[in-house]
């Protein structure tokens, strides 16, 4: 038996639910040395800004138990180069592109949405609400305030082509992720991606200095998974009709099942791509084998199973 892996995120149909997480796969080119990027559901590209950005100083990374802290600071070539160089490469390989955008301010998000919509072949736009809000002197994230997040989503929705799904990427570093989700959906997000990295810190016990430049970093990797699964579960409970991409520490096919049962329609692989460049293909294979072994005919039947008593095996 071969399970039907197809999944649906609002208006976006994907052949299977395994995608890459933004910033953890480039635009697919490097990982294509290890597997065929057309084989996975989609490649979510690194958040692109309007202008080139040099990012943060090194050291940008520290390993932590089952995870890592990073502070890359949105380094990237800017949207023009991305659209001329990186996106066409991905599309030429038959890959599906979810383009993540990060504006320094609300207006920039609108401009990015317009430019990305003008490009051909994009499958969806993901709105990174966890880049620092430049208008805010404290460097807070748009996601820190549901009203700000909603303003961004609304701007993106009104500038993006109407048939292009807009996904809002949420952070768990908020008083209530359900409030944030609700605000983004009310602002007409077609789906939600959750979660982004969580703020954290490591101090080098030898130098007694923060392990990454700038002190705080974003925690990612399997250490994050219970937090992410919890967010997906709560938001799916509150908003059962809103499609969700689950992100946070996915390492195996079983993790995909966990996220889908909690309420995700697709699942993104992030940090684990760093430790295993074949991870996406492996996770997809393990997921398929697990479905077959359990006799589950359709992957989408898993979505939200943890909310329904008596559906486990």
């Amino acid at each position: 038996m071969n399970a039907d892996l197809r999944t649906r995120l609002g208006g976006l149909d994907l052949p299977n639910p395994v995608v890459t997480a933004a910033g953890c796969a480039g635009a697919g080119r490097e990982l294509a040395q290890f597997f065929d990027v057309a084989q996975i559901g989609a490649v979510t590209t690194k958040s692109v800004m309007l202008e080139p950005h040099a990012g943060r100083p090194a050291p940008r990374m520290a390993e932590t138990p089952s995870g890592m802290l990073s502070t890359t600071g949105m380094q990237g070539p800017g949207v023009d180069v991305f659209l001329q160089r990186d996106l066409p490469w991905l599309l030429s390989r038959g890959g599906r592109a979810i383009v993540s955008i990060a504006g320094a301010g609300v207006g920039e998000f609108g401009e990015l949405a317009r430019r990305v919509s003008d490009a051909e072949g994009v499958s969806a736009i993901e709105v990174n609400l966890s880049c620092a809000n430049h208008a805010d002197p404290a460097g807070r994230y748009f996601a820190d305030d549901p009203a700000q997040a909603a303003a961004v989503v609304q701007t993106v929705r009104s500038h993006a082509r109407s048939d292009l799904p807009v996904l809002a990427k949420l952070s768990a570093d908020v008083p209530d992720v359900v409030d944030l989700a609700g605000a983004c959906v009310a602002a007409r997000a077609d789906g939600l991606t959750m979660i982004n990295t969580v703020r954290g810190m490591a101090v080098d016990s030898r130098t007694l200095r923060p392990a990454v430049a700038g002190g705080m970093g974003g925690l990612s990797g399997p250490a994050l998974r219970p937090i992410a699964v919890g967010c997906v579960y709560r938001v799916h409970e509150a908003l059962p009709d809103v499609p969700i991409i689950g992100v946070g520490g996915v390492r195996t096919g079983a993790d995909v099942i966990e996220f889908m049962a909690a309420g995700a329609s697709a699942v993104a692989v992030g940090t684990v791509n760093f430790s295993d460049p074949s991870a996406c293909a492996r996770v997809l294979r393990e997921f398929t084998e697990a479905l077959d072994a359990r006799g589950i005919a359709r992957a989408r039947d898993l979505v939200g199973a943890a909310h329904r008593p008596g559906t486990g095996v």
Partner: protein
Amino acid sequence: MSDNGPVQVRCPVLNVRRVDAYYAITVVAPGIAERFRSGQFVSVSVGGDHSSTLLRRPFAIHDVKPDYGGTVEFLFSVRGTGTAWLAERRSRDLLDVVGPLGRPFPLPRDPVNCVLVGGGSGSAPLFPLAQSLRRRGCRVDFVLGAASADRVFSAITARRVAETAVFTTDDGSFGTRGRVTDVLGRVIEEARSDVVYACGPMPMLRAVTAVAGTHGIPVQVSVEETMACGTGICMTCVVPVVGDDGITRMVRSCVDGPVFRGEQVRFDDVGSIPFDALGAPGWKGSSAARAAESARDIA
């Protein structure tokens, strides 16, 4: 997926042995061995499939041999959890290895005089380089330095393959007391060196680049920056490098390096974002810089 790009393999360990203060692991990895060019590295999973030490450890490839279909050797010292785990591997254990990664040392077209400068474990990639250079008819001289005698790696091999080999140690327990740069100028003059190759800690590379500069010869350096992926997707391993077009970019040392022309690395700015780097805060790129950027192909 491609013939010359890196591959990911689960390879059996052939042996683990002590070499001076270091461990040398040899694995059977034909695909990596046949693709390898000197200067490239491997990244190795540590702790097993479900380990909490998630990230791979990068190591320079020290040797490849045709035996057993193609073996790859790398050398390391125990620094922390990952290298401690590696030191406990035994023959027939399996290691998950990705390689060969990174840009190799560029080789001169004509037979020229080359001086190879290594600091501590940074000497490892210089040995296959020496062999390649010798095969091209180049003269090879070694300058190897370390903290103490037991950390000067493979002095005997260096003496055997090179025209001359000079050693320095910080504590004077072997060779000359002092730094590699204390003797490098003299070696360059006596050997009439045309080019310097260097691998070791960043401050050493910076000092070696300065010495090569005063002698007016080019220098190729292999840098070491912390790496989360080694494959070019995480953007954690960046160093400020000036391109041929005069524009400074934060480039990835794993795929755009680890080998760079010494003069192009902005050593004084490592650990910061130079104000004039492409995309630095306040950067106002010219349209030429933007055009150059979109034409630039990524590795």
